[in-house]
């Protein structure tokens, strides 16, 4: 074992810093240099680390896996103003990243989870020519509604205490997380199975058991103390503001993405969710996914997979299954491509 191996790092995963779009970005990578490139995008409150199993799995299957800490997270730079956390800024980072790591490849495979899925949708909207296929975990496409701003829309449907509304005021939720203890909050977020919509009441927002012995409640098999240590140490260092800025930029995003009103996603897509995911179980979502709306907005939606007995972090809960689904889909697209050339 390398002498200066950092806590939580898995063997063989390379780490480096890349200058992109005005910031310095930390990426984790593994896999044959010439293999098909898979770009893996984490969500909130997450890190490159969420993809540890997929990185190992996909690289052993011949892919070059690249997982950044997105802007505002982990070892990547966090600009100060929320106005620098729009999807245009994010896609700018990723386009510059691809310029740096994709080499001669004209297209890459894309995997996104949670906010990484949302950024993935925008990357597919803005730069479809760069994406061969998109695996979307948890968060389906949400076409822009020109009549309703996002935050007021959520407030109207789910109330003031809907988590997205509670995340808006700069500094407030950070305070509440600090009070409830970040480690406990992270543990509850990753391993919790509460169904949607996610409501954070103003007193006791994280449903944190005030019992100081709650630490002793067993973690599930798929999420170890070391995993929790890793997340806690990173978020202790950076705080949560970087990640929260994505939510605080949602209305600004809406304003700036007016050009894409009515635009459809043209990239081939496979959607995967866990059946206990709070997004999947939020009212309206199942209807959208299975009722035809999703397919109408994403004409090249090829597959919808609902994994049983899995929550929001399905890529961590059922890692082998998710990796197999990813490989299955990308291989299919690759084969289609190869057949075309005959």
């Amino acid at each position, binding site marked *: 074992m390398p002498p200066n191996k950092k806590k939580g790092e898995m063997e063989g995963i390379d780490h480096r810093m890349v200058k992109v*779009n005005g910031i310095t970005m930390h990426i984790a990578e593994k896999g044959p240099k010439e293999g098909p490139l898979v770009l893996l995008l984490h969500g909130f409150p997450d890190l490159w680390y969420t993809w540890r199993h997929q990185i190992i799995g996909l690289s052993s299957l011949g892919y070059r896996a690249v997982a950044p800490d997105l802007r505002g997270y982990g070892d990547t730079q966090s600009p100060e103003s929320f106005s620098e956390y729009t999807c*245009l*800024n994010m896609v700018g980072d990723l386009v510059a990243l691809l*310029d740096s790591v994709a080499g001669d490849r004209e297209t890459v495979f894309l995997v996104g989870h949670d906010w990484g899925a949302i950024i993935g949708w925008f990357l597919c909207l*803005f*730069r479809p020519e760069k994406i061969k296929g998109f695996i979307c975990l948890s968060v389906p496409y949400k076409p822009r509604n020109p009549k309703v701003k996002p935050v007021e829309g959520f407030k109207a449907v789910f109330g003031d205490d809907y988590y997205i509304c509670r995340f808006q005021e*700069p500094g407030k939720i950070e305070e509440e997380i600090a009070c409830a203890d970040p480690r406990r909050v992270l543990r509850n977020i990753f391993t919790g199975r509460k169904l949607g919509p996610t409501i954070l009441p103003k007193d006791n927002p994280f449903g944190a058991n005030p019992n100081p012995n709650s630490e002793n409640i067993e973690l599930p098999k798929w999420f170890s103390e070391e995993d929790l240590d890793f997340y806690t140490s990173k978020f202790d260092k950076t705080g949560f503001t970087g990640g929260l800025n994505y939510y605080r930029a949602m209305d600004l995003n809406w304003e700036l993405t*007016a050009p*894409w009103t*009515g635009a459809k996603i043209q990239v081939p897509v496979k959607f995967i969710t866990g059946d206990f995911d709070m997004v999947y179980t939020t009212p309206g979502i199942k209807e959208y996914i299975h009722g035809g709306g999703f397919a109408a907005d994403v004409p090249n939606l090829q597959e919808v997979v609902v994994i049983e007995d899995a929550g929001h972090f399905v890529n961590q809960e059922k890692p082998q299954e998710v990796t197999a689904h990813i490989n299955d889909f990308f291989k299919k697209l690759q084969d289609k491509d190869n057949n075309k050339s005959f």
Partner: protein
Amino acid sequence: MDLTFDHRFVKVNGINMHIAEKSPSVAGNGNFDGVLRRPVILFLHGFPELWYTWRHQMVTLSSLGYRTIAPDLRGYGDTEAPESVDAYTSLHVVGDLIGLIDAVVGEREKVFVVGHDWGAIIAWHLCLLRPDRVKALVNMSVVFDPWNPKRKPISSFRSFYGDDYYICRFQRVGLFDSHQKKMGFTLQEYGEIEAEFAKVGTERVLLELLTYRNPGPILLPKGKRYDDPVSLPSWLTEYDVKYYVSKYEKNGFTGPLNYYRNMDRTWELMGSLSNAQVKVPVKFIIGDQDLTYHIPGTKKYIHEGRFKSHVPLLDEVVVLKGVGHFLHEERPDEISKHIHDYFLTF
């Protein structure tokens, strides 16, 4: 010449947009439906102009069978000018145009586009972001300037041309409260050029800009006097000037100036379109006396291949001898013919 235009207001992207329209005359049998199925040309004006700059093309091309539509862009003329200086990025303006095309032509419908000056910049961005809505483009005066991570606009202009360069003089001059900046708020910044324009007078400002024929960059040193008489060129009548002055006197220059104030912010956001090609068929027209044609590097860019490498469907480049910046007003029939000849091929 039938100079009657239909005017109306359309609610798009949160603003009330004024458009002028001229369509093929309805035949005696009252075939209104036929008109709506005619190909549409969307005309995008520049600075410091209005829909009115397209009057000649609209007359000619509507008589040739096109539905012609020319908006006052956001911040101009009778279109709403949002108060926030931050509401004038290319993303906002292209958003307006998508809303406009949806509303007056149809969702998923494509249009022909003609752009000039700032309208040309907006047209390039419209084609980059929504190539699925543009059938073909005739763009004038301003070439496609591919995104460059090393060239943040205002600081580049400043180092290249100096502080008196008009784009530098148009910038906002505001003071950020550092706490507010941390919170992501921008103070309602103000520009100082509006006050200087007011001193010179609206008519004089417009005349100086509309009759500018120097191939060099526009420099506006502070305190410069504008006393010498200005003679009107043949293509600009007293009536035309009166029209422009009336609108600019009513609405001021701030809306139009805000476009320049968002060049850096647009640049920041357009990193997402880095190295993207313009994938729409294009015909480009420029006058050889236009100051844009004389920007160092531009002739080479146009004629030696780089323009085409970024706009692979660039079908034709036309350089008009002895013609200046406002080419479609200087040579209206010639430009209308170029437009019609090109769009006929689709």
